[in-house]
């Protein structure tokens, strides 16, 4: 990670973008979600198995994830022990919400004409009508679509939050 990249990342502000992860950041988060808690050296051991990475690189990434609020850390003697600030599912739910809210609520629909992001509130009747038209059974939402929930919020309906009116 060059200084330029770090500077560029520092320049990026705003809720939605702040939570976008680079590939290495995503990998580190993935390890931490699996382990629960870990030090920089633990993560280096995991990630470093498949490629060679410097200790400082991993440390920089984890510090940045901490700065972004994705990780929390406790001091254990001389080293920090990191753990994820939210579960993977919570993080995904927030990302999805941020993306669409980011695209439309925050930025308006200027400059974009979108297919997926235009999917706003849909009541039960319309949902059922669409399901019928799509030729799917009552539980057909995920059929033939193993990764269907991959990006969805696990408890979407409960999480529905209204934008400012």
């Amino acid at each position, binding site marked *: 990670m060059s200084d330029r990249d770090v500077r560029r990342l520092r320049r*990026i502000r*705003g*809720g*939605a*973008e702040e939570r*976008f992860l680079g590939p290495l950041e995503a990998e580190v988060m993935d390890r931490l979600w699996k382990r629960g808690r870990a030090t920089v050296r633990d993560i280096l051991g995991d990630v470093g198995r498949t490629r060679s990475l410097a200790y400082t690189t991993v440390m920089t990434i984890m510090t940045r994830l901490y700065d972004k609020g994705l990780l929390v850390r406790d001091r254990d003697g001389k080293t920090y022990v990191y753990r994820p600030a939210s579960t993977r599912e919570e993080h995904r*739910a927030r*990302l*999805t*919400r941020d*993306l*669409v*809210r*980011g*695209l*439309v*609520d*925050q*930025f*308006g*629909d*200027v*400059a*974009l*004409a*979108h*297919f*997926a*992001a*235009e*999917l*706003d*509130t*849909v*009541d039960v009747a*319309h949902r059922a*009508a*669409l*399901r019928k*038209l*799509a*030729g*799917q059974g009552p539980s057909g*939402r995920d059929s033939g*679509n193993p*990764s*269907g*929930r991959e*990006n*969805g*919020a696990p408890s*979407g*309906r409960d*999480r*529905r*939050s*209204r*934008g*400012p*009116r």
Partner: protein
Amino acid sequence: MARADRAYALLVLLALGSSAILIALLGSLLPHALDLATRGADGADAIAVLLLLCATLGISLGLASLFRQLLATLALIRSLLRRRVSVSPRVRAAARGLGLDGRIDVVNDPRPFSFCYWFARPRVCVSTGLARRLERSELRAVLLHERYHLRHRDPLRIVIARYFAAGLYVVPLVEDLVEYYALEKEIAADGEAVASSGVGPLARALYKLLPDADTVSLGLLVPVGALSVTEARIDQLVEGRGATPIFHPLSIALSGGALAAAVTLAAGGVVLAPAFLLVAAAISGASQQLRLVARTFPSTG
């Protein structure tokens, strides 16, 4: 001419006509403002200055907030495009024969989305998450939908439309027409996809993307009490029924009143009654402007 195009043409005509009237009015008010500065207070001059101040403040607020939205949108697009990957064979196969060669960007992102962006030569952006989630025919339907936006330069049109609405906040009918156009263009884009590949693939694509929409509300986009854009799209798919324009009698009355008042004022100097009518329209318009400004500061959580 398609309904979306008609709505847009009507919008541009109304906006240009209203702009001409309001600019003439502001031009006729300027001497009053200068009088006030040089010769001291007088009832008519004070009203003129008040009108000028309100107009300038409202218009600058709306335009500034839209400009900020535009910059932020462009920053978001740039940040997405940093993760551009080569167009996968899957996307290439879905886009075969659509005339979109070299105009599709695939970005590496697990979330499913697609949009059409940029002004002079629009492009279509598709996420790897969307490509993975949809089958080929469904992906093709989404690309057909986006191709409509691309061919009609909808990104540019919507920016122009939103700027008209922000600048002409005393004519609420403009805002209504923008909402109507925003909805019609989605329905027209769906229509193109359906005409080419039938209802099934598009309906399945929409349906597969619904779970993600559960977590969000884009309530700001649509007039309260009206169908959401997606619901209107579903109606269109199910019944082939187009959306009916929603022009509130109040906004027609306010728009007509404001423009008539502006003409009277511009023609005959400041008269109290039309000035108040215009102020009433301005207050109603200002609530729209505030909504626009509020959109720039979303609540968190």
